[in-house]
């Protein structure tokens, strides 16, 4: 038996499908005209919500920076937070633009390459958000307390408390990466947590980069 024999069997089955395969038009109309969405449009929707949440935060931080431009102790943490939020906004806009320009009717390799680039962008954003969150906690407390409650954290807590928080955050990063690498495989019962752990450990990013390499080899060989 070789591929040509199997091709013949495939063609026989194909002819039988003409008679046995039917389209369910009613369900089809529900799927096309109803509320069914593609995975990408669901992602675009979630990104849109994220953008709507990030924009007021960026504006709030911008306004805080202007108000405290002469107070370096408030200015510095606010600028750090602002840069982080702007980075998030940029990556969201880039992802939305990439989704908007995708035409699934283009050749398979081209679309897969673009989809994988999009995936890599999303994975990087998630990884850096997770990694930087423990470090951003302290500047957030300083800015939020001053802005929302009028409380000067520097006066209320001593410097060693603030430094301790920063150091604890810094120590948490390698610990979180180590835990993710060690236990991600065991989190099958919580797919969401498992995905976050795999994102943090860099497994999903490596897999995406590996697929991009495979696409390149497939095109070149």
């Amino acid at each position, binding site marked *: 038996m070789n*591929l040509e024999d*199997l091709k013949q069997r495939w063609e026989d089955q194909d002819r*039988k499908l003409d008679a046995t395969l039917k*389209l369910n038009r009613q369900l089809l109309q529900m799927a096309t005209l109803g509320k*069914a969405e593609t995975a990408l449009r669901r992602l675009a929707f979630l990104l849109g919500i994220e953008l709507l949440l990030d924009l007021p935060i960026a504006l709030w931080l911008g306004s805080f920076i202007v108000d405290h431009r002469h107070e370096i102790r408030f200015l510095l943490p606010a600028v750090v937070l602002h840069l982080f939020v702007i980075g998030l906004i940029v990556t969201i806009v880039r992802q939305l633009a990439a989704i908007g320009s995708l035409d699934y009717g*283009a050749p*398979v390799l081209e679309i897969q390459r673009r989809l994988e680039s999009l995936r890599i962008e999303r994975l990087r954003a998630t990884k850096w958000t997770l990694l930087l969150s423990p470090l951003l906690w302290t500047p957030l407390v300083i800015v939020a307390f001053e802005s929302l409650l009028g409380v000067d954290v520097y006066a209320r807590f001593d410097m060693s408390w603030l430094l301790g928080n920063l150091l604890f955050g810094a120590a948490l990063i390698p610990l979180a990466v180590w835990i993710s690498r060690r236990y991600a495989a065991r989190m099958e019962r919580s797919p969401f947590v498992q995905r976050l752990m795999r994102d943090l450990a860099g497994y999903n990013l490596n897999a995406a980069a590996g697929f991009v390499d495979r696409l390149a080899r497939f095109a070149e060989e």
Partner: protein
Amino acid sequence: MATIPRQERFLSLLDEHRKILYKVASSYCRNEADRQDLVQEIVVQLWRSFGRYDERLRFSTWTYRIALNVAISFYRSETRRTRHTVPAEGSILEVAADAPAPGEADDSLELLHGFIAQLDELDRALILLYLDGNRYDTIAEILGISETNVGTKISRIKQRLRRDFSRTN
């Protein structure tokens, strides 16, 4: 006003090419629930992209591209097991009750489906297009690789198949 004729046209074109959806979904999913999810995802994507369909391209080529793009993404999606968008009461593609399920028709087809399942997502697309009787230039157009590359890859897959069969027998 123009939506209804456009929708009717889409539905009739889709009906003509329904076998492509079935074969792509069967090649990328062996589980019935996943297959139904994938068919729905392909149909929704086809409809959403229909406005951009360039009539210079054959509808079958365009359908293959979209179906394979969606199928490969679906196959690679880590969340596919938890996502079920199709209502349980039916499926968009219905196979007559007395017809054999994919891969159950006879031993050689079962063998072929088993072989396809061993291929990675890109080789799977290539072999599916080849088995469906597409010419090398059409396969190249659908996948976005050169015609020579298509020939080289198919010849490698044939060799691998021969090797696998001789090992099995």
